């Protein structure tokens, strides 16, 4: 009797006799392949090398490779030694102690500068008497002799009424201020310089009204200033000193003066953000009565207004900003307006294609148009580009403004923002007298 195992074996052999020839024949016909074979489509397992053509073609990049290696090593070292953390920590500490160092650069060298602001605006804890009180001091200087020092005391929301008060003490020394004469048609080729030393005490008292929703806030305040200004020859070997060319009769205030000011300011602000507005705007109006002291024959009223409005175009990353501004100084009787208190145009804050303080006169009227659009965003960092156009003019008497006298400047800005606040503003402005460059840490408006 066949064992069970033998039976299975015989059965299996019979099965194989039938199945195997079939499977074998199909195996002969089937095109089977090792899908994951090491046989490569191109080349073989040898170190990849550039061909001669590639070597020649890549040669222009070889010197740059060396630079890269150096920079990479430094970056790795910085991160490995946590140098970035150390610097960031130290910088944070400096700010924590209230010090805010900044620098600024204008193409016109005397305006380059370094500032340090010591901010102790949170000297006291909020109380029912004063919500916030503090002291701010700042100090700026540059290698051309510009120097300023100031201190400001503030008390906000007194007795929870919205009333506030500020006291400012300021001293400034400007070694080389440009002066091109009075009027809209002065020549850039005929320029003078003067040195200005000024001491200023200012007190402001006001009330802030806050409105619900989109209506923003309104500030109404009164101010009193005392100023003492001393003018002398500017420090510039190449340019003419103002005191050699003018006297008090040909240019009021050429030796400075002492005067006080009483005035009022009204400001309405409904911007959605002060640092980076996309809609809303602000409107400021100031009236200041100035009167000479100790025999100085100054007496005039200064009117100043400025209004800016922002509009989103299609989305909040494209913003149009329009600003109108003007200043009018009206003499009282036959008294004088010192030239250093005249309306001025030119430079980063007004006509950006013209030099700083390029135009002086009793009145000015100007406007700016900016289109701010975002081209890059990464985390909290942003880069905005800003084409702009500035138009404006100074003029002598009220009502004498003429469109034909206006100066036009245009240009572009690149603004680097962190957390929707401009940190670096690089601007290039061009006008009919040339091109100006600016590096600043905020926006003109």
């Amino acid at each position, binding site marked *: 009797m066949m064992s069970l195992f033998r039976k299975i074996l015989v059965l299996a052999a019979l099965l194989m006799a039938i199945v195997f020839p079939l499977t074998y024949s199909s195996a002969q016909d089937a095109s*089977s392949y090792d899908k994951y074979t090491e046989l490569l489509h191109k080349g073989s397992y040898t170190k990849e090398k550039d061909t001669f053509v590639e070597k020649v073609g890549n040669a222009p990049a070889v010197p740059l490779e060396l630079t890269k290696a150096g920079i990479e090593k430094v970056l790795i070292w910085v991160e490995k030694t946590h140098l970035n953390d150390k610097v960031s920590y130290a910088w944070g500490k400096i700010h924590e102690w209230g010090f805010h160092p900044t620098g600024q650069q204008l193409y016109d060298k005397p305006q380059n500068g370094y500032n340090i602001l010591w901010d102790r605006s949170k000297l006291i804890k909020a109380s029912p008497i004063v919500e916030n009180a503090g002291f701010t001091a700042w100090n700026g200087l540059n290698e051309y002799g510009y120097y300023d020092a100031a201190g400001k005391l503030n008390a906000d929301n007194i007795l929870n009424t919205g009333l506030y008060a500020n006291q400012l003490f300021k001293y400034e020394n400007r070694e080389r201020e440009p002066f091109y004469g009075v009027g809209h048609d002065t020549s850039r080729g005929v320029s003078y310089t003067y040195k200005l030393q000024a001491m200023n005490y200012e007190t402001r008292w006001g009330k802030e009204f806050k409105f619900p929703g989109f209506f923003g806030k309104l500030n109404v305040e009164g101010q009193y200033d005392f100023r003492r200004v001393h003018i002398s020859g500017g420090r510039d070997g190449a340019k003419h000193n103002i005191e050699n060319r003018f006297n008090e009769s040909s240019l009021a205030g050429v030796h400075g003066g002492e005067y006080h000011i009483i005035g009022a300011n009204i400001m309405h602000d409904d911007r959605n953000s002060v640092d980076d507005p996309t809609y809303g705007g602000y409107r400021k109006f100031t009236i200041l009565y100035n009167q000479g002291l100790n025999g100085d024959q100054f007496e005039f009223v200064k009117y100043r207004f400025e209004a800016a409005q922002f509009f989103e175009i299609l989305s909040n990353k494209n913003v149009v900003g329009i600003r109108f501004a003007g200043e009018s100084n009206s003499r009282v009787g036959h008294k004088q307006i010192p030239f250093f208190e005249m309306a001025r145009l030119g430079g980063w804050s007004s006509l950006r294609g013209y030099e700083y303080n390029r135009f002086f006169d009793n009145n000015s009227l100007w406007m700016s148009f900016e289109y701010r659009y975002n*081209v890059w965003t990464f985390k909290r960092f942003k880069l905005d580009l800003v084409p702009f156009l500035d138009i404006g003019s100074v003029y002598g008497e009220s009502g004498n403004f003429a469109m034909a006298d206006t100066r036009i400047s245009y240009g572009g800005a690149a603004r680097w923002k962190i957390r929707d606040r401009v940190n670096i503003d690089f601007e290039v402005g061009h006008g009919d007298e040339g091109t100006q460059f600016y590096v600043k840490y905020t926006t003109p408006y």
Partner: protein
Amino acid sequence: MDNPMRRFFSAIFLSLVITAFGVTNVSAQQTSVSPNLEELSHAKVKKKETSMYADFFDKNVYDRGVQWFYIPRVFRKMFNLKKPSVNANVYDELPDSTFFTNRIGRKDMTAEEIVKGPEVTTGPETTGPWTIVKGKFEGITPGFFIKDAKGNEYLLKFDPPGYAELSSGAEAIASRMMYALGYNVPQYTVVYFDPSILTVWEHATYYAKSGFNRPLTMEKVTEALKDINRTPDGKLRASASLKVGGILKGPMSFNSFRKEDPNDYFRHRNHREIKALIVFASWLNNHDLRKGNTLDTWIDDGKGGGYLKHYLIDFGSSFGSAGDRPKDPTFTFEYFLDYKDVAYQTATLGVFEPDWKKRWETNHKTFRFPSAGNFDNLYFRPENWKPEIPHYAFDDMTLGDAFWAAKIIMKLKPEALKEIMAVGQYSDKDVEKYIYDILTERQKMIGQYWFGRVTPLDEFELKSLGGGKAEFSFKDLEVFYNLSNAAPSYRYRVVTHNKKGKEKVYQGDTNFSGSPLELDLVSFKSLGKFDVVIEKLNSNTGKWNPPVILTVSSDTSGDGFVLAGIWHADKVKK
């Protein structure tokens, strides 16, 4: 029958069975073999370094600028020519290597296999004690290097405050998916533990926020953990990554190879698995692809030498997570410095909204689940997906590389993925379902896009029918995965290619409707080797997609033919 006889017959029987079935289905049985690795001594391998700043500078600043000085690259860019991946084999696949192992691409993996992933341990022993050997307090969320009771070393990383489960869940799931897809990854486990099991090694240090190295104390650990999310029973949740075995040799470049490694043959930018990494990353939404998130380790082969194994690490920036916070709106839409987008925005005065902005506005500047982060498929376009920094390798990806990656991605079955989601240990099942839904939808979108750009045929078999006739069978992946409603339409031609790649046509374009394709090849037999070029009609554009080229050679031992090569071409070329 005695035992030796029984064993003899059994052996004969088994060998017959194996031979029979083995011959008929070699491709299914074939086991992978890594290239023969040359011995490499540990001392010879340099330890490399990188940093986040160096990666950003190197790739986003230097490479982007200097690429214009590499004339051949400029030339290729101008004419949209792309180098084929040098490590792809004759069948348009990748052989297993120290970079990549064909896992789900080779055979189906069960959910259990994928969940197991690269598992070496089951995670740190939560009974403790865990000794902190080093603190990692840079950044928003703290981390610790710990040693558990068994002596295994892990890196513990916590979820960002307010976003419980965000990065730990993403890392656990994404790492397993990447493992299944074929990459070498460390083991990541979600752990819950009582902070009381933590102890501090007496020599442990940490880098304080001031940038100085300080001794680590328990007080400091407690302070660091005070903002970390806790479970209702006071436990902490973390992602625990097991220290990779072998001797750590620093990061792997996505661009060049290690000169000292004899097994590192090709510049990494020409590797298919590196080039196509962007396709896998687009699925997992892992934007943090950079040198700093790779690791080379020297593995002792036990024969006195060793070899280098290349890992991808850190998957905490997958899905909606950016590691220490939810993804920023621009992530995956723009590089850190995206010159092209900046130029476009500049030139168009910012009038056109970028996709990231449209998406962010549509989502009302928020996202549905804090644990899922900023993750959805709104404005997701597989071809436009971007990591945080660009790489030459990704620029150079061919359609064939993308097809290869998409093909592997499609192999991960939705039902398996559903089970894998459990490793994220989300407390809210809605979050798990939300991420799963996005992943499955995105998987389909990726398949649909890349399959739609090529002739998406795969799994070719060539059967000689005798008399010079042969039958090609294949699978159209677009049809197989039901990604297109249009009836497929194909054409083929028989050609030979000269050295410059120019075709000499022996049989002109002939339309056919699908697999199998029966051809009379008798008149081409004398050529020895020839190509059958198959193209699929793109139903959207009405044009023929770049072809798949089948290289056929005459079987010298008989009157049949064998399939000698498969290549998914990048361009329609005649």
